[in-house]
């Protein structure tokens, strides 16, 4: 697995905005609360198909998203509920998507993990991975074309680094010096495929050398380490200095999707990472640093739970779509 390049960023909170830290923490907690509810819904048979969750991805997803301006673009994947929530996506909409409800962002036409909202600057990707990478270069291209200083942040998994789309997108972004940041969420597995069968490079961020751009690997369970690395990359992109790769190393603590027992995973990895819950780790840092006290922590967790419960209730109650207009909208006017 990839060794990290820098010490965790959480050694000190010096010079960090407590208000921002609290918001990051809140969204990470909310993400976990919502996904735990969705796992329950999956087990209860409330969802259409399987369920992809981002347990242990919260630090990468929320940490990276929190480095953007609201008018920046984002192209997240199926582990990035946190990034969507950071941008204002409603938890019940996500649940509705996994249930094929009329109230999902696609009205049930697409579903499951395909709930990105362009009005939040988020690309709604197809299943083919990482199709969001070339698209992300286009969003960045448009910003540069217009002389805007917007950035586009794209995510992919370790397994996606072997694909055509990864290579051609990185090549384009690098030769055209586009304002992109590419985050690799290295959770050690691609479905059942371990990292060593996906890439022979020492670190996934080493692939940056092929494109002559900066590449860095950080502890993906340390939200501040992620923020420091992605923040740098975003600043670079915004300044017109081109794209970078940031690899965050974490572990996929659930199956590829909830149907997958993932018995192929090395026990040692589970053991190692069970001690590295990104939400808990960050919570402790904030408590130690005096940014939070026990009451606030309790309140944040309670609020998140209540929000998730309410979302579940609404999603369950929402109607299924009505097929009468099914042939409309294949073409835009």
């Amino acid at each position, binding site marked *: 697995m990839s060794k990290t390049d820098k010490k965790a960023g959480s050694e000190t909170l010096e010079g960090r905005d407590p208000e921002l830290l609290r918001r990051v923490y809140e969204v990470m907690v909310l993400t976990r609360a919502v996904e735990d509810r969705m796992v329950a819904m999956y087990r209860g048979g409330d969802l259409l198909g399987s369920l992809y969750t981002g347990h242990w991805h919260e630090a990468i997803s929320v940490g990276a998203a929190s480095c953007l301006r609201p008018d920046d673009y984002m192209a997240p994947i199926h582990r990035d509920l946190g990034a969507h929530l950071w941008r204002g996506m409603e938890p019940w909409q996500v649940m509705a998507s996994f249930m*094929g409800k009329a109230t999902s962002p696609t009205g049930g036409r697409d579903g499951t993990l395909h709930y990105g909202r362009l009005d939040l600057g988020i690309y709604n990707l*197809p*299943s*083919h991975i990482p199709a969001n990478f070339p698209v992300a270069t286009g969003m960045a291209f448009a910003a540069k074309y217009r002389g805007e200083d917007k950035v586009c942040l794209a995510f992919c998994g370790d397994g996606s680094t*072997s*694909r055509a789309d990864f290579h051609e997108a990185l090549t384009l972004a690098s030769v055209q010096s586009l304002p992109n940041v590419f985050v690799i969420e290295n959770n050690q597995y691609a479905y059942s495929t371990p990292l060593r069968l996906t890439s022979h490079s020492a670190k996934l961020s080493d692939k940056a050398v092929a494109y002559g751009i900066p590449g860095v690997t950080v502890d993906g369970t340390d939200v501040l380490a992620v923020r420091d690395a992605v923040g740098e990359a975003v600043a670079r992109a915004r300044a017109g200095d081109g794209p970078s790769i940031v690899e965050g190393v974490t572990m996929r603590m659930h199956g590829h999707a909830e149907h997958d027992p993932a018995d192929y995973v090395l026990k040692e990895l589970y053991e190692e990472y069970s001690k590295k819950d990104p939400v808990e780790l960050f919570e402790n840092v904030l408590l130690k640093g005096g940014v939070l006290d026990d009451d606030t922590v309790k309140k944040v967790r309670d609020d998140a739970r209540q929000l998730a419960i309410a979302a579940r209730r609404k999603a369950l109650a929402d109607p299924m779509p009505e*097929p009468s207009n099914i042939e409309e909208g294949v073409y835009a006017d």
Partner: protein
Amino acid sequence: MPTDTIPGTPPAPVLRSGPAQELSANPTYLEAVGAALDHEMERDPNVFIIGEDVGQFGGAFKVTKGFLDKYGPRRVVDTPIAETGFTGLAAGAALVGLRPVVEFQFADFISCAFDPIINVLARHHWRTGDPMPVTMRAPFGGRLRAGPTHSQSVESYFAHVPGLKIVMPGTPEDAAGLLISSIRDNNPTLYLENKYLYRRLRATGPLSMEPIPLGVAKVVHPGKDITLVTYSAGVHQGVEIAQELDKEGISVEVVDVRTLVPLDVETIVNSVKKTSRCVVLHEAAKRLGYGAEIAATIQEEAFWHLDQPVVRIGAKNTPTATSPPLEDAIIPQPAEIAETLRKVARA
């Protein structure tokens, strides 16, 4: 044929004897695919399976469950996510005497190998005379609520391309016999598995491992009033509907084309010449679905025998929706199929 394509492969050690998977008394469509692949890998050391998660995991749908234990990593090859790459790899291996079987995790992802399939595999033999024995297996189709990019029917992306064979079994028995023929065929063969049938369709008894020739259609339900030409999931649907319509006094002859390329035009046309009416059914979208080729051919070959125009039934010309009420409105439903047959038969 170059000398070094004469199979020089050392007899492959089988690490574990007996079938890779135990078969049930009435094997499923899924078991049939696995058993036929197992049979060919035992029989020919040049046959290997390559794809994503086909090893320890046994494939996303478990077709290759037990194969890694039986054949080892040399012949059960887990790949990175690289459809273009491993399809081209299969072509290179086939050129020098191996017989790769490529598994696409979902047929939707075969789009990522479209280029090598049509430009490297399909055209190679005609250009050069070299052999290209690659079998490409892909689970396709809808009704699993999997949405626009996990439910595609892909046969029309490829049926126009010269040099490919396209095999679409509709029963467990055909799934076995046609896969065996595909693997033994010296051409690139697209073998499309309807994933909705995997665990829903069972063989009537034990499976035969006799190859079933490619290019031979089958009358799966004899009839005299109207012909239903179909394939894949349309076969068992068609037979069930035909049995129902028998009771109403409408005698439907169901023809399972089994392979789209080559297409057994004679069997289709003979049936239509007998019934004078024809409906073509597939799950794929109607526009330029393979039903267009079949309908156009029938009116060319049997125009003077037709009492009615050939009617095509296919999915609506939209992506496949995720939500059940939407997907069901897009993919042809039995009631709609039966109603169309009634209309055409009685018109």
